[in-house]
């Protein structure tokens, strides 16, 4: 009996050891699989149930000054005010938008694969602020940002924003009225724009790098062909951003009035752009190197966001502050406070409201140097079909910019001409191209 007992104990011990050994080996894998919650969802199942309940009342409803008060908790205070008191914006008849049900956005296969492949390879500096192997990775570097640490979390959200390559190659036509609402006049700019990522590519081959030998260290090329205003007809420019985060962009412009190719200083990024409320850093709601700011994650905020915006549904009257027919849905955004490291920077701070599923900045609030609320910009996004894979990729299809101190605003309506383009001529970002098309 004793022998049988001891055998049984030994067998149990052996089984326990095997289970222990397996568990030791398996746990990291399981933990890792559990930690890599990507692509993210904006809501847990429980939260989503509540959202759906709310939507039973509100989805499909038209919101205007008569009922905006009832949903104001899901709008930024400034915008709730625009709808509640449209006369401030010289629009006594008021503005309206509609509420749509929340629809989850799932990143492309390429983004998911790249995130899975590279997120473990991300190397940061000692302060966990700067990605040091920036050119060698792609996808979201921090698929599950550490939100328990405000500084680290904010920083990681910012890097995720930076690594959204907008489908790697994007072409759009922007129509951008700058509005003087007091007299309902506007000056419209119209421009064809291309964006091409040289590194961190996830959706279009070759991936992740466009060039085998990127000797110039180009991160992104950006090309603009202006059609309006008339003084700028056929003015064309390109901008190259470099992997070296300490280096300013290179910019060249063919200025049609002077018929000259002019090198342009791209370092003055706080200069406002041609009468609009934007500075150069405000493109996409942030267009600069991530290391220029400090970031602080400050929580979540449920907001109505235009994430499935068909720009053809917008109803815009010339000279009026905001289009009607914006289609907004609830989204549990990530809120990040952004402060420039430059003490003399034009803005004291920005507050980003980031889509946790795509890492686009859906809203941003901007404060002046005296920390007074100044501007609020909203991005409209919409899924568009990638030319490369046929999947849907969310891209920015418009932006509303409002200056609440000066009561001035601008709109950018961006018609997608192609995303995930497989044939973007790199010669577009050359002086030769500027000269060729110069008339």
């Amino acid at each position, binding site marked *: 009996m004793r022998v049988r007992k001891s055998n049984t104990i030994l067998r149990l011990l052996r089984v326990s050891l095997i289970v222990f050994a397996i568990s030791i080996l398996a746990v990291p894998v399981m933990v890792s699989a559990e930690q890599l919650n990507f692509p993210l969802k904006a809501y847990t199942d429980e939260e989503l149930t509540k959202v759906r309940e709310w939507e039973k009342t509100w989805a499909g409803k038209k919101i205007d000054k008569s009922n905006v008060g009832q949903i104001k908790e899901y709008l930024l205070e400034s915008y709730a005010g625009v709808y509640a008191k449209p006369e401030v914006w010289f629009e006594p008849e008021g503005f309206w938008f509609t509420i749509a049900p929340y629809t989850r956005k799932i990143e492309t296969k390429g983004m998911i694969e790249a995130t899975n492949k590279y997120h473990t390879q991300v190397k940061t500096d000692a302060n966990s602020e700067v990605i040091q192997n920036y050119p060698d990775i792609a996808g979201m570097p921090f698929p599950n940002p550490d939100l328990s640490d405000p500084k680290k979390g904010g920083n990681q959200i910012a890097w995720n924003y930076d690594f959204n390559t907008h489908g790697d190659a994007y072409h759009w036509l922007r129509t951008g*009225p700058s509005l003087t609402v007091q007299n309902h006049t506007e000056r419209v700019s119209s421009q064809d724009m291309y964006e091409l990522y040289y590194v961190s590519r996830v959706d279009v081959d070759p991936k992740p790098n466009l060039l085998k030998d990127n000797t110039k260290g180009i991160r992104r090329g950006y090309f603009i062909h202006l059609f309006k*205003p008339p003084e700028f007809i056929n003015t064309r420019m390109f901008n190259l951003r470099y992997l070296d985060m300490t280096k300013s962009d290179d910019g060249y412009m063919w200025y049609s009035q002077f018929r000259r190719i002019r090198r342009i200083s791209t370092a*003055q990024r706080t200069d406002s752009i041609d009468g609009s409320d934007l500075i150069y850093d405000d493109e996409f709601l942030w267009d600069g190197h991530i290391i220029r700011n400090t970031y602080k994650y400050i929580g979540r905020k449920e907001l109505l966001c235009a994430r499935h915006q068909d720009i053809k549904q917008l109803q815009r009257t010339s000279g009026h502050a905001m289009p009607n027919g914006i289609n907004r849905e609830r989204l549990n955004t990530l809120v990040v406070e952004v402060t420039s490291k430059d003490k003399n920077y034009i803005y004291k701070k920005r507050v980003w409201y980031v889509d946790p599923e795509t890492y686009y900045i859906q809203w941003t609030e901007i404060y002046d140097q005296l920390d007074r609320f100044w501007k609020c910009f909203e991005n409209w996004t919409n899924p568009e079909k990638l030319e490369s894979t046929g999947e849907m990729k969310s891209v920015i299809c418009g932006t509303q910019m409002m200056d609440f101190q000066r009561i001035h605003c601008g709109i950018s309506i961006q018609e997608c001409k192609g995303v995930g383009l497989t044939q973007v001529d790199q010669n577009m970002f050359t002086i030769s191209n500027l000269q060729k098309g110069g008339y």
Partner: protein
Amino acid sequence: MKRKDIFLIFMLFAFLLCTAGVKPARAEVRLADDKIILNGTIKQTMLFRTQMQQEEYNRYHKTHLDYNRFSYVIEGLFKIKDCPEEQLNLFVGTKYWYELAPVYDPKMRKGPNPGVPSIQRNWYARAKDRDLLSEAYFDYLRGPFDLRIGQQIVVWGETDIKRTVDIINPIDVRLGSPGIDQWEEIKLGLFMLRGTYQSQLPGNLLFELLYIPGDFRPARLPVDGTHYGANPVVTQSVFYPYVPYGVTTWQFEKARRDAPGWELKNYEYGLRVRGFTWDIDWTLLYYDGLYDAPIATSDLPQAFLDNYLGVALKGQVTQTLQQPTFPSQKLFVYPRYRMIGGTAQTVIPALHNSVWRLEYFYNFDEPYNVGTDGSNSALYDWVRRGCFGMGLNYSDKFKIPGFTHRFCDDKMMDVSLTFFYERVFDWNDDIIIAESGRGHRGQTASAHEIAWNVQQFIFHQTFMFMFTGSYNPIGKYFLAPIVAYVPGNHWRWELGFPTYGSSERTNKGLHDKDSVLFRMRYEF
């Protein structure tokens, strides 16, 4: 009602109509599924002289509004073939102008000695013949090649106001002035073949070659008695009023008649290489062509005596109006010369991220007239000399505390400053240069000048303030503050005050032409 009153009422009505009806609309016109793109400018420009000698006013003007030009430029791009492999386009630019001042001011056109000589009035007052076509060329693009054939305007320079190496096309300053009008409006198109090739060589070398097969057009100089021309003679001279125009008009008219026109032997060619090295964008260029400005031959003094002074003397004796004559012999030549030069531009981060541009040239065998002690009136021949010149331009943007944020919506102030220098080698004090407008003091080999442009947009670019000017240490200056109102997509209203001054007797320029500028434009 007087014609002047009708005109003023019309202008007032047009102004009110335009300001009341500012509505947004599309800019350029696109036709045939975007295969034809049209755009242009329609413009009315007026200069009201605030500075005019009383004698000149009494004798030659009924109004101080001595410049009132209607003009337009319309450009069209026709896409004949547009596919990824190759493109064929036709670019056509047309322009027209009509100078109204002599129409409503009878003293500028009537009488034996009108303010504007009748011999040149029709030539300058409206666009005619080839002037109607600024450009017309085919553009064929394939791979790294771009070939353009036809009448073209080429810009090779980088600096403002002065043309340092931007010398391919002659200029027409009959009714325009650098700093007030765009270069493209005052350049004359030339027929040429122009090709570029983008190489794969280090430095991204871009080669450009142009060949002008003898299409020569001389520079167009301002007509006496017009706003930009020399003032008409105001004193009771020996000859006036027995000849209908002054000495300068006779010389300019003869120079115009002596211009060679289109002949194969007047070919011109140029080569430019563009590259990028050490963060500097540079060009090197070479040009071989004819001098655009007339150079008087040694026959001029005698011919002038025979055909102008003699005739005028006869008028004085007989007390009758005489018409000067123009001999068939060539008194003005447009000699061939060569130029090498280049440009460079870069951004210097250490200097507030400012942009710096450099232009330089050396002219071989540049022609100069010579006269005793450099005097134009004692002209006896012409010589050739080498000449070096350069322009260094600095441009930057600035915030003005308390101003750009409050009034300019954080639009920074654009500042551009250019220093020019020129030196004629193997100097001879007889070289006539002070009156050439190149900024030299009499009998001096070198000249210096600074030019600037300050531009500030205000109230979301609804207004724009611009201050352009230049200063030459010889005491010559040009200042032009301009305010523009840009209410919407198309209309532009500008008010300015161009002023000029010179303390140099032989280099006065437009020293007494201070004016109020009023310009309205419709851009589309």
